[in-house]
């Protein structure tokens, strides 16, 4: 039986892992390749690496970072941040990514999802959605690291993206990101019910109860950054707690 996944996320800026709150106030959290190897050893099921560099110079490090991580990493690697055109995705895959996440570019020009799926297969195409609550049961898509709110509604956007070729949804609650107050379960549930591809819940994880709740709400995988980066807990400890809750995880 397919197990649920626990996915540490490396936000990388200028070649270093960083983490902030609601995408702001970034703190250093180590070297990407060292963190990646440590998470694999702890039992991480997959890694997501998001390039959050603010400048083109910073982005120049991204391919090199992906290569360095790939050399040491024997589990799947999803890379996102700065993918504008199909060739950007091809370069990341050549450098060692297994999946590519697109966000702003897909909102601007949704055709990119179909182009990526046609060239690389839908299992390679992850749509990252940053969703901000606009009221009960309603979320709008935000882009440009949360600085710009769009007119798109998050659940409908997920449905459209899957129709266009996305094979997985990386769903981040902008309101909860980095706050460690728990995932937005209503959002996770709404999107998981709307699509038949895997949904990765992201934004707000603090405890194994939070992760278990997101999985019960319909997520196939849970993503977390802050709780792992600063040594508060390990992937192995979290997975043992999820297993104790009756959730099927890879031992």
């Amino acid at each position, binding site marked *: 039986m397919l*197990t649920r996944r626990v996915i540490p996320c490396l936000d990388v800026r200028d070649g270093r892992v960083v983490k902030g709150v609601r995408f702001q106030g970034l703190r250093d959290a180590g070297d990407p390749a060292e963190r990646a190897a440590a998470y694999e050893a702890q039992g991480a099921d997959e890694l997501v690496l998001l390039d959050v560099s603010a400048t083109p110079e910073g982005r120049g490090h991204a391919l090199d970072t992906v290569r360095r991580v*790939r050399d040491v990493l024997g589990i799947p690697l999803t890379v996102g941040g700065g993918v504008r055109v199909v060739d950007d995705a091809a370069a990341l895959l050549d450098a060692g*990514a297994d999946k590519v996440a697109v966000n702003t570019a897909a909102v601007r020009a949704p055709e990119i999802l179909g182009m990526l799926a046609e*060239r*690389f297969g*839908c299992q390679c195409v992850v749509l990252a959605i940053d969703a901000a609550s606009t009221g009960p049961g309603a979320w709008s898509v935000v882009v440009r690291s949360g600085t710009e709110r769009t007119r798109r509604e998050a659940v409908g956007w997920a449905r459209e993206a899957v129709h266009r070729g996305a*094979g997985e949804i990386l769903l981040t609650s902008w309101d909860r990101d980095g706050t460690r107050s728990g995932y937005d379960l209503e959002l996770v549930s709404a999107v998981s019910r709307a699509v038949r591809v895997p949904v990765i819940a992201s934004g707000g994880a603090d405890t194994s109860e939070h992760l278990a709740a997101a999985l019960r709400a319909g997520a196939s995988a849970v993503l977390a950054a802050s709780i792992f980066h600063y040594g508060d807990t390990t992937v192995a400890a979290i997975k043992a707690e999820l297993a104790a809750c009756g959730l099927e995880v890879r031992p």
Partner: protein
Amino acid sequence: MPEPVCVIRTGSANLASVVAGLRRVHAAPEITTDPSVVRAANRLVLPGVGAFGAAMAQLQQASLVDAIREHVRSGKPFLAICLGLQLLGPASEESRGVDGLGLVDSRVARFPEGLIVPQLGWNRVEPADGCRLLQEGYAYYANSYRMTEVPSGWQGATSQHGGPFVAAIERGAQLACQFHPELSGAWGRELLERWLAASVASGGMPC
């Protein structure tokens, strides 16, 4: 001394991961689309992601179809990954009307309706008694289609996703996996090591 391994470039595959995985078990992967290099190879790897029809078209265009068939029929060391396994069959529901390599007799079909597809994640692998390379454990999958029956002449392992499907098949130093050994952590690395050791034992001509 690193063991040379020929890796066929099938266009869109996650070649960097395959190459990195092979290097971690001390193989020396050489990427090629040249039929004469494939014909001279002792160890051949057929990776693949993307669509069945597009991959077969690329193999045809590069005149690789016969070279791969000869290699597999000769019994020389061979490793197929993900779509690479499916290409061994006669056809796939994914690309109707397209002939596969026709080296095994099992059909390839989409996972049943109602499941989360693509299957992305780790699933338990259960080898049948006769398997020598394949062992029990968890492997990473990324697929929407799968082989439904272990083909005749091969030993197989299965996993469950809406019923059993073919996780991998093996025959001597030939191994074809629906999962990605290069992304299956320590378990996958050990499987690659056993395959490489079996390929050395079966006569280690240069790549």
